[in-house]
């Protein structure tokens, strides 16, 4: 019997083994093969994986693709946030928060971030220069900044980090029952914690973002479920991806003394350095969308009702757009293309001005105060299939 092979469904084996530790540690060779051989790959889990820059950049803006109709499984409460809604609900929720993350607003939040970073580095300087930068700097300072924006005290940081990670486990395509249970429990914990925060705020009003959400609810612009889960979302994104950006940047500073000097001596190069950190190790490797009509991607027509995984981390390493893509080069020309680490289009990251500012504050404070930084132990990782994660980053400043 002759088997006719045509299109991505005919690939045998799993070219994107989401559960494989080797894949999680270094997914880039897998991405490279997909881009070369199967730019639209029908994964055994059922979704279509898109890996080339040109396709990802086009589809990530495609207004016919839906997030609202996606099945998030145990992470279904995300549908109460802008991440899980299409227009017009997405538009309504985003307009409520947009003004809190404008460059002008970010100037205010930057003061909080800077004070937090300087306080950590003061202690480091008094001691022997050693620090676990992952929890002691990246997490601590971004979390304190998020809480300030909310208008609350920075409590329960470690629990919030852990519960967020447990929800993240179910956002990739490869989750199991145990992870699903952890995700459900984590959402329940967040709902309880956040309802307490909101009722405290009702009793003692302030001028933070939670107060703005309460006002929006009272004016009928948000539901209670949207308030609770939007607060969850901001707790999560307030540290999750930006923490990786900062950790990865500090790690690069330990590996490349020239980068340390460039960051210190060439302020005009700093935005390019931050962009290159985001490009070469994109914190969130994919976004998922649902087709609502026949969607043509290169030689493949994906029918309506199919999930698309848009591999932004692969797009950011596409040699068609980024020459010598596996090499860190912050001087590469912008004209070729912008990285997609913050997404693009209407679901593009609303907090990217803040994320860039927070990363710059950390790196600037380090290079202005110290003459170098080195690893003081092996970093530890907890990469998932969609989220790059450094859990421990022992460093010593000198």
């Amino acid at each position, binding site marked *: 019997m002759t088997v006719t092979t045509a299109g991505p469904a005919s690939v045998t084996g799993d070219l994107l083994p989401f559960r494989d530790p080797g894949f999680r540690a270094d997914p880039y060779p897998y991405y490279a093969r997909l881009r070369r051989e199967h730019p639209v790959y029908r994964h055994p889990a059922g979704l279509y994986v898109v890996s080339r820059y040109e396709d990802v950049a086009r589809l990530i803006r*495609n*207004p016919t693709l839906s997030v609202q109709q996606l099945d998030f499984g145990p992470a279904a409460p995300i549908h109460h946030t802008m991440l899980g809604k299409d227009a017009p609900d997405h538009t309504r929720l*985003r*307009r409520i928060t*947009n003004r809190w993350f*404008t460059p002008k607003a970010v100037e205010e939040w930057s003061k909080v971030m800077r004070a937090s970073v300087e306080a950590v580095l003061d202690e480091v300087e008094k001691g022997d220069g050693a620090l676990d930068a992952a929890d002691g700097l990246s997490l601590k300072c971004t979390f304190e900044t998020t809480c300030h924006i909310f208008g609350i005290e920075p409590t329960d940081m470690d629990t919030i980090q852990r519960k967020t990670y447990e929800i993240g486990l179910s956002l990739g395509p490869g989750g199991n029952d145990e992870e699903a249970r952890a995700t459900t429990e984590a959402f329940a914990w967040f709902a309880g914690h956040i309802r307490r925060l909101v009722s405290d705020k009702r009793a003692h009003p302030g001028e933070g973002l939670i107060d703005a959400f309460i006002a929006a609810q009272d004016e009928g612009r948000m539901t209670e479920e949207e308030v609770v889960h939007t607060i969850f979302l901001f707790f999560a994104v307030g540290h999750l991806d930006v923490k990786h950006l900062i950790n990865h940047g500090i790690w690069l500073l330990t590996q490349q003394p020239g980068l340390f000097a460039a960051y210190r001596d060439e302020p005009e190069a700093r935005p390019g350095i931050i962009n290159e950190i985001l490009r070469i190790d994109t914190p969130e490797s994919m976004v998922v969308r649902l087709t609502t009509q026949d969607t043509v991607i290169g030689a493949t027509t994906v029918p309506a009702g199919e999930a698309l995984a848009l591999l932004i981390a692969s797009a950011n390493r596409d040699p068609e757009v980024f020459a010598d893509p596996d090499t860190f080069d912050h001087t590469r020309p*912008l004209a070729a293309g912008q990285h997609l680490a913050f997404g693009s289009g209407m679901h*593009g*990251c609303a907090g*990217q001005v803040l994320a860039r500012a927070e990363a710059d504050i950390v790196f600037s404070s380090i290079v202005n105060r110290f003459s170098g930084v080195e690893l003081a132990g092996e970093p530890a990782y907890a990469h998932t299939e969609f989220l790059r994660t450094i859990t421990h980053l022992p460093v010593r400043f000198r």
Partner: protein
Amino acid sequence: MKVEVDLKKCQDHGQCVYAAPDLFALDDEGRLSLRSQATDVYVADVDEASAEALYEAAEVCPLQAITVHE
């Protein structure tokens, strides 16, 4: 007054469309529709009546690609 949009900075987040739907739109591909009229920088006159919406659009643009000239 005039609006200037740096299309090299713009990443089609569409926040300007929400803020000023009379001035900005996304096309069928989800890209800023005025890209069909310019490649690098788009400049156009804007009626004073739209000033408030235009300022909001400039303020909320995540890439800060919109400049307002009085």
